[in-house]
């Protein structure tokens, strides 16, 4: 059972194809820089060829006792080697530049998908999103930065070395050619080996990860049940299985590495023996002029260089799997949100934004969980009266937050219509035209004023001070060293949960929306701060329409109407009865 589960998790072929396609396109922004990097890499190879030629010449000069040539040869050797180092350095600079462009572009598109201006069709998991934004983007860029230049420079380098060898002594080039004929065979073998072992490895890896994650989640349960030791044994077994699978994979990889080693090593040994015997005059290929020491040494030195690009390619192959996994995760997130503006008449938007409190009406609204057939709730007909407080109650998971996002236009209902109305206009809910306050708010590492100004960019300091007063933060802020210009957040004045929520209130106030949607605005607050926040909310929303999801009796107490959401049905209670 566990195995079929894990196999499902590896993902369908279709998903893989989409991810591969995305991975390919992700390289485009950095391609120009990476091509320059490739050209420089190839130039480095040519310079290295020159360097070894100089060394060969030095040896020849030593044999013939031409002192001047030795000095010139050494000078040429050093110069070529320094230039080769410079070419490598420049190539890596360009590689890094290309990498930066790729990573920047991935992050841009991820930011748009995860934080869309318009609706969001899926709820991205915050931790996974952050991971993708910060780490996975890097992994993809690393892969491209490594492989893309090699893909061009490797064949060029190999051809250059082959040609140089052939020009100096063509029979040696034939040795190279024969050994490289073994390379595709080896690659094929490696591919077959790898495919077979990788699946088992991946399964074992996922199994252990899932097991670890659950053990951390359920640690207190394990302690409770006295099952820690048993769980440890299970983890140990899963961990050993992963080790075995891992070893099986590397053993196969080493086998193909071994074949490669044999090819490289024996072409060096064969060339050395052949050249040595030719120089001694024991071997003579008909039609080939006798070989000189310089030519022989040069051919020998180029031999290991010829295979170096192949080795780099094989090493980069390893990054591919990581990049593909990252690509799968990123590609699935990119389909999550829309940045397109909604089709609403600007006039209706204008009227709704400023004029008067909004009435929200829901007709025949039904919501079905997107990937599943579970229906969360169905609401025949309901209305949130203008200027009233409506509390939505119900157990966790009953769909309170979902109902709020439908009202706020952050999600589309599966069926039915939701409308915002005033005496002069009516429109479908619009993202960006209401005030939402949830359990989480963003406190930027910036001044109090700038944090509040997120609500409306052109808010004046006076308006901000007024909003802070209404949110009940006036005293706290005036006590600060630089008032509203004090830096708060991570690197500044620490903000408590209750204060953060009141900053969110001030922010919403300067935004000026007349429909407030509050998602458990007082949860995680001690009773005292709950009353303070509630008080601030009451004051701030005077004359606005408020829908609030809550578990708190204190909040229900101040509501004009209570909707209790249970088993997908909304039961309207009067406020008194509920309290």
């Amino acid at each position, binding site marked *: 059972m566990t195995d079929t589960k894990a196999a499902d998790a590896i993902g369908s072929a279709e998903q893989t194809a989409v991810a591969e396609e995305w991975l390919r396109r992700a390289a485009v922004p950095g391609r120009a820089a990476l091509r320059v990097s490739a050209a420089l890499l190839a130039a480095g190879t040519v310079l290295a060829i020159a360097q070894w030629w100089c060394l060969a010449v030095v040896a020849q000069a030593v044999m013939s006792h031409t002192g001047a040539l030795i000095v010139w040869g050494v000078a040429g050797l050093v110069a070529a080697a320094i230039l080769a180092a410079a070419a490598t350095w420049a190539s890596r600079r360009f590689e890094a530049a290309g990498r930066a462009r790729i990573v920047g572009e991935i992050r841009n598109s991820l930011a748009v998908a995860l934080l869309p201006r318009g609706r969001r069709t899926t709820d991205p998991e915050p931790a996974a999103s952050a991971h993708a934004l910060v780490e996975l983007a890097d992994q993809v860029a690393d892969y491209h930065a490594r492989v893309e230049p090699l893909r061009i420079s490797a064949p060029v380098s190999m051809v250059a070395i082959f040609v140089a060898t052939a020009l100096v002594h063509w029979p040696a080039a034939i040795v190279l050619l024969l050994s490289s004929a073994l390379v595709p065979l080896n690659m094929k073998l490696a591919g077959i080996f790898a495919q077979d072992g990788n699946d088992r490895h991946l399964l074992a890896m996922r199994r252990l990860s899932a097991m670890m994650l659950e053990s951390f989640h359920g640690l207190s349960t394990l302690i409770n049940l006295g099952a820690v030791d048993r769980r440890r044994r299970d983890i140990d077994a899963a961990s050993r299985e992963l080790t075995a699978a891992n*070893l099986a994979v590397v053993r196969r990889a080493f086998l193909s590495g071994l074949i490669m080693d044999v090819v490289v090593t024996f072409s060096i040994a064969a060339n050395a023996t052949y050249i040595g015997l030719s120089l001694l005059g024991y071997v003579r290929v008909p039609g080939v002029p006798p070989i000189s020491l310089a030519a022989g040494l040069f051919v020998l030195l180029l031999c290991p260089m010829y295979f170096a690009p192949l080795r780099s390619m094989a090493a980069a192959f390893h990054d591919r799997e990581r990049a593909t996994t990252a690509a799968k995760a990123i590609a699935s997130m990119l389909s999550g949100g829309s940045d397109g503006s909604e089709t609403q008449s600007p006039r209706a938007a204008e009227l709704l934004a400023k004029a008067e409190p909004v009435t929200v009406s829901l007709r025949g609204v039904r919501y079905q969980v997107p990937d599943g057939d579970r229906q969360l709730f169905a609401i025949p007909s309901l209305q949130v009266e203008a200027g009233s407080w409506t509390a939505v109650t119900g157990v966790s998971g009953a769909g309170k937050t979902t109902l709020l996002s439908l009202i706020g236009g952050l999600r589309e209902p599966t069926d039915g219509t939701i409308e915002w109305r005033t005496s002069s206009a009516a429109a479908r809910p619009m993202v960006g035209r209401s005030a939402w306050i949830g359990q989480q708010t963003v406190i930027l590492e910036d001044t109090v004023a700038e944090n509040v100004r997120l609500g409306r960019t052109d808010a004046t300091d006076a308006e901000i001070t007024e909003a802070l007063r209404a949110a009940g933060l006036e005293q706290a802020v005036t006590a600060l060293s630089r008032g509203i210009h004090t830096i708060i957040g991570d690197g500044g004045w620490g903000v408590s949960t209750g204060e953060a929520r009141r900053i969110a209130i001030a922010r919403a106030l300067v935004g000026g929306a007349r429909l407030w949607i509050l998602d458990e605005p007082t949860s995680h607050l001690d009773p005292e701060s709950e009353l303070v926040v509630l008080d601030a909310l009451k004051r701030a929303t005077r004359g606005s329409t408020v829908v609030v999801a809550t578990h708190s009796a204190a909040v229900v107490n101040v509501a004009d109407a209570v909707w209790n959401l249970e088993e997908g049905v909304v039961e309207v209670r009067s406020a008194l009865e509920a309290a």
Partner: protein
Amino acid sequence: MSAQQPGRARTRVVSPLAVFGLALAAIAELSSVGLVGLSGWFISASAVAGATLYSTFSYVAPSGGVRSFALARIAANYCQRLVLHAVALRHLSGIRTGFFSSLADAPANRSRRLRTGDLLDRSMSDTETESMVLIRGIAPVVTFAIVAASGVAVAAFATTAGAVVLAAASLAAVLLTVVRERVKRTTADADAGRRSLRAEAVTAVDAWPEMASLGAIDRLRERILARLTTVADVEQTARARGFATDAAFGVLAAITLGAVAYAAAIIDHRDAPTVAFVALLAAGVLGTAAQLGAAVESIALAKLARRSRERLMEGPGDGQETPHIHAWWDSHELGFNDYRLPANPYRAARDVAVRVKRGGTLLVVGRSGTGKTTLLTALAEQLRQSSADGRPRARTRVSYVPVDDFLFTGTIGSNMRLADPGVTIKQVESALADLRLDRADISAGTPVGVGGRELSGGEQTRMRIARMLVAHPDVLIIDEPTAGLDDQTAKHVLGVLRERLPHSTFIFAMHPFTESAVHGQGSQILTLD
């Protein structure tokens, strides 16, 4: 194995087998350098002999040497990889299990603070960084030390001046590596930058509804992207410094190669075979040295990973110290006193004390936020400590089922077996029938889904209770035992609990609306409102 020492997963990656692997790695590299050096010498010597009449040069020994180096290189390379990987992977498996153990032994308020995503990171990827240092870090450093020392020694036989140059160059390579690590030492900073960035991204995605509703998404996005760019720039600068030192390394190699050739040919007046041999030897030594930078970096990363894993265990708790309570239980009764209820809008602060006879039931009743869960948690912890007498087995005799008690991926049966590994299918099925779970077509083989998500809320509650039924605790503390159950089922479930565990003492926290389900069963009630 090492994992049997819980909490002290300080096993070292360098074992005798690892030393053997490192020796093989050094032999492989020596053969590699030897192969090229000897080949160069052989070719040059052949050229000299070929140009001389009546030479006595024998090609048999050198070409045999070339072949031996070739074979040694291939065999040693293959074996060292196998041995070192086997050692590193076993070590990895050991520290992973050890990590879980030390976490399980940590005090509750400490492990509560840790985020599970972080823990997974630590247990899966950080441990890998730690173990693989043998291959990525230690092996290249050891290999370089051996190759450089033997290279200088061998060169000294051929040319003193050349050997001096090579020794100086090896030293310079080490110095350059130290410098490289110094200028690149932004790893820790970048790590911290990334961490805070991740935290900001998490809140941003979490708070998306707020920001989107306000129309403030654009600014938020700009902000995050700007910070990402800043961190990326810092890393880029570090990388660029690394490139620069690598280039300096290239220049060092170039100069060394030239200087060795010059020293051997011009200063020491050696012949062509010796010059070729020494120059190629120098090239080999410097080639090995080129891997030093990456190796030292990986050692630093492994240290960092290990330190942050250890710090995880040493850090402070979540600040939510369990409130003080004095509690006891024995074969006659269970009781507690000295528990202070803080003031809240509905009540003044007061102390509470309760005694319950063995086999009795205590209901803790109050609205949300009155402190039911806090009281239950404190009570469970205290009772376990007072009953444990240092024997961890006794823990199972006091069972606490929090509202979010975890259901593990697997089947109903595998969850029950966690509580009692010896439980039979028959016992499982009978517990399910008692709790009327069989009516929902749930059997021992039914999968519960990830975290129990394939079960409804009411089914999950009953599943948690069923798990406790097979564990037979003496004291059973349940937070909201009737959550998600209708009145009739709730009554039935509580009835079954009492029937199956007639001598156990029950403590249930309940909401005022649901408490009616257990009224009239002779239970004591403690109201927190």
